């Protein structure tokens, strides 16, 4: 039964031309367009490094580890060493995105929030995290220094250098492809929606037939959802292969994490579509409309059309950023892209898993009801 239904559902999805267009062809077309439109930009002007100033004072001299760490990121930052007054002036003239000063704690001074500021903060967070480890190790075990235990941690500069070097060169174009992949993940909603419609007697006539058959509806549904997820992952694989193989965009060695994000993102998309179809009792056209509208709103708030939107939401209404699956997907890509540690990445992934569970649970409770109040 499970396999029987699975095979037929694969057929039904693959033969649904409109669905295949939106979930496969459309993202590929967009990727091609992005590539055409953006290829000139990168060749003409390199990735613009984040301009940042570091205030020279005694505390800075006392922290040579920081200077070394910073030097290891010359791909990312254009650093100037200045006095505090000069840094302030540069910031006011918008010559730099922010300046870093030890007084005596590490401080970041900015006058607006945006992508560049987040990049600097990400670097500082990384640095503080590992220097905090050093401090703890040293206070708790003073002999550690002599024993070389700290060597691994204190060779911070190496660690950072290695990571940044192994990461793909910062390339703003990649971001457009990340958002595109996030959108494609959420378009998996169309597939989830189709499966719920096909099985609910109050949403489709074939649904009534399935409800009348001597089979467990939830078994049929699980197999349908598996078929939807299979197709969705295959589509993402094709999209990734196209972006990497045909368009020649490199995602560096983050591919494993990108794949994980794609799987989790796809599940979020598919279960979101199923959730919409199970809670709203309207025709398929209306449901599709709702799905497109909500997906687009989420993508907009995640900065897909207007990049600064993401930062406005994150700073003004942070809760909204965490409640927006589209934002979580793009955010996990950003985290991969800008941060050397994966804390942010896994936070996003965990939150997405939360959404998957909530969407699935609600869908389950609706589908479990066996009789309909009206057809």
């Amino acid at each position, binding site marked *: 039964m499970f396999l029987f239904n699975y095979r037929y559902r694969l057929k039904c999805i693959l033969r649904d031309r409109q669905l295949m267009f939106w979930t496969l062809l459309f993202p590929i077309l967009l990727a091609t367009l992005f590539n055409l439109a953006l290829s000139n930009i990168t060749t003409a002007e390199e990735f613009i490094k984040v301009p940042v100033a570091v205030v020279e004072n005694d505390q800075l001299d006392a922290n040579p580890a920081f200077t070394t760490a910073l030097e290891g990121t010359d791909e990312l930052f254009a650093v100037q060493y200045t006095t505090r007054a000069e840094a302030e002036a540069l910031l006011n003239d918008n010559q730099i995105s922010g300046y870093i000063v030890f007084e005596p704690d590490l401080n970041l001074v900015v006058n607006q929030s945006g992508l560049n500021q987040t990049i600097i903060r990400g670097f500082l967070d990384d640095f503080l995290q590992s220097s905090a480890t050093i401090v703890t190790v040293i206070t708790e075990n003073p002999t550690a220094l002599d024993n070389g235990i700290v060597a691994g941690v204190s060779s911070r500069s190496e660690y950072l250098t290695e990571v940044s070097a192994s990461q793909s060169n910062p390339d703003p174009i990649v971001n457009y492809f990340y958002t595109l992949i996030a959108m494609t993940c959420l378009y998996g909603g169309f597939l989830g929606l189709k499966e719920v419609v096909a099985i609910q*007697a109050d949403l489709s006539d074939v649904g009534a*037939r*399935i409800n*009348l058959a001597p*089979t467990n509806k939830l078994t049929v549904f699980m197999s349908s959802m598996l078929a939807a997820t299979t197709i969705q992952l295959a589509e993402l694989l094709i999209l990734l292969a196209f972006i990497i193989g045909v368009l020649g965009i490199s995602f560096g060695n983050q591919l494993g994490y990108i794949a994980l994000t794609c799987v989790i993102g796809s599940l979020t998309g598919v279960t979101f579509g199923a959730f919409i179809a199970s809670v709203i009792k309207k025709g398929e056209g209306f449901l599709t409309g709702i799905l497109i509208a909500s997906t687009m709103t989420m993508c907009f708030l995640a900065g897909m059309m207007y990049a600064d939107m993401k930062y406005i939401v994150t700073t003004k209404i942070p809760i909204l950023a965490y409640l927006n699956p589209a934002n979580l997907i793009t955010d996990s890509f950003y985290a991969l892209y800008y941060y050397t540690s994966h804390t942010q990445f896994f936070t996003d992934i965990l939150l997405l898993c939360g959404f998957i569970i909530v969407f699935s649970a609600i869908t389950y409770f609706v589908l479990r009801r*066996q*009789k309909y109040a009206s057809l």
Partner: protein
Amino acid sequence: MVINVKNLVKRYGDLIALDHFNLEVQEGEILGLLGPNGSGKTTAINCILSLLKYDKGTIEIFDQPMSPDAYDIKRDVGIVMQNVAVFEELTVYENIDYFCGLYIADRQTRKKRVAEAIDFVGLNDFIKFFPKKLSGGLLRRLNIACGIAHQPKLIILDEPTVAVDPQSRNNILEGIQKLNRQGATIIYTSHYMEEVEQIASRIAIMDKGKIIAMGTNEELKKKIKSGEHINLELLNPEDLDLEAIKALPHIISAELTDHQLVVKSGRDKNNLIAILDHLKDQNIAIGKIYSEPPTLNDVFLEITGKELRD
């Protein structure tokens, strides 16, 4: 008993779609469920099948209480719904195979049953067609095949001939009788009395969520007062005294439209001679004369006071 429904009540908000609906169906019969649009036929079927929640009543199929997970009952029931329910993305063959597969897991058996169903509805030339490419009649036949391929003991057909041309309609009706001869019990809903008269061994007439009369075609017609309809074509109708005709004994009604006089008389009281005498006295020339037996419409009209078809 194949189906036993007692006191079924179903409300949609304030509307009472089924009002203490009772139905008994015996093995081997073709029960015609006849009722005008909106009388509750589909609602009754969907409740019986445990698709719809209902407010009151008990439903037994094959002498067992029906419920959504009564799989033993469901295995032996086939449904042809009022709306065509097939997947647009699957071919004729695949559709039948899919729905049959929900009942029959064994591939060999299924293959045989699907082939038989295709033969039965005569879709052999169309097995690779997608539903979009089928004409209305062919689509209805596919809908039927999907419902009966697993060879159920009880087949419920909800207006399977809506929007089908007379030729296909006859094919379908003959097919249903054939299924019945092969041993299936049939429930057939329709708002066409001719269809029901043609195939049903027993007829239940429904109105406003209730069965208002039940019996064989003859039994139903015996229940009412009126007998045959006498149709007379009058050449000079302007000379007719309609009231005088109505005043004749045993005449229930008399109506004149243009040249056509329709007289309904009481059952078994053939008044043709009296009418003819009367017309002769009035010097009215007569063209054609013919008489029709009463129809189910008369039954419906007499019980409810309104026409079955409006």
